[in-house]
C-alpha cells in the first residue's frame, strides 16, 4: 500500500467520523504497513483538559482515534474504502499512565501497532509520548 500520504488539519476528517469537540487526532502518517504515527496538539479548550492538564480519558480517546484513523488510512490506501470507517472501542486493556499528565500546548505523538486483525476486529498496542517521554501505554480492541 502507499504509505507516503500524511493527513493533517482538515484532511484528518477523511479518516475519522468524530468531530469537535471530541476530535482527538490532528495528524496521521504511516510508518509501515502495521505501524501508524498520530499526533495531537493540546489546546486549552480541549474538552478533556482540566486545570491545564490533559486528562486520562483524553489520552485513551486519543489512542482509540489514532488506531481508528490508521485502520481508515490502510483501507483508503488499499482502495477498499473511500472515506473514514466507523470504529468503536470494544475493549481497553493494560492502560498505564506513566508519570505526569500532559499539559496544555504539549504535542502528543502516538505510535499504534497492529497486533492482529481478524474479520472486523483489530487488536492494537499503543505508546504515547510527549517529546521523548512516554506518557501512556495501552492495548485496545477496535471494531470497525
Amino acid at each position, binding site marked *: 500500500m502507499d504509505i507516503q500520504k500524511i493527513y493533517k488539519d482538515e484532511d484528518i476528517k477523511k479518516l475519522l*467520523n468524530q*468531530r469537535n*469537540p471530541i476530535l482527538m487526532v490532528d495528524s496521521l502518517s504511516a510508518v509501515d504497513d502495521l505501524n501508524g504515527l498520530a499526533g495531537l496538539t493540546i489546546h486549552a479548550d480541549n474538552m*478533556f483538559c482540566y486545570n491545564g492538564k490533559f*486528562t486520562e480519558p483524553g489520552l485513551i480517546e486519543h489512542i482509540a482515534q489514532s488506531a481508528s484513523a490508521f485502520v481508515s488510512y490502510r483501507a483508503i490506501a488499499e482502495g477498499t474504502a473511500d472515506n473514514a470507517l466507523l470504529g468503536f472501542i470494544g475493549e*481497553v486493556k493494560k492502560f498505564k499512565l506513566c508519570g505526569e499528565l500532559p499539559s496544555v500546548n504539549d504535542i502528543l505523538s502516538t505510535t499504534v501497532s497492529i497486533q492482529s486483525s481478524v474479520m472486523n476486529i483489530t487488536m492494537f498496542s499503543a505508546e504515547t509520548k510527549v517529546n521523548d517521554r512516554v506518557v501512556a501505554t*495501552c492495548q485496545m480492541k477496535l471494531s470497525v
Partner: protein
Amino acid sequence: MKMLEGSYFDVLSTSNDNGTYSFDIRLHSNHKVYDGHFPGNPVSPGVCSIEMIRECSEMIFSKPLTISAVSQCRFITVLTPVSYDKAVITITPTVTGDSIKVVASITDGADTTFVTYKGEYVA
C-alpha cells in the same frame, strides 16, 4: 474533578451495600460532546463512561483520584443518551496503601450491561 458531572451526567441517588457503591445517574442528551460523537447520531463515548466511573469513585473517597491503570475495560452494549437516559454505576473498591483498585460496571439496572471495568487509582 467535575469534568462531566453536572453537565454530561447527574447523580440522582447513591447507596452502599456492604462496600459496593451504586450510583443512579441520568445522562444529558444535550451535552456538547454529542455535536461530534457523532453528528446526527449521538453515541455516549466509551471514555466518558471511564470518566464517570472515576468521578463517582472520587465521591466515594472525597478526594481527587488519578487513573494510574486500566487493566481491562469492556464495552459490551452501545450506550446512547437517546435509548437510555438513566443508568446505574456500581463500584467495588479495594484499598491497598496509596492504591485504590476498583471493579465497576455500568448497567441499565436490569439485564443490559454497557461497560465492565477493572482499574487502579492513586490519590
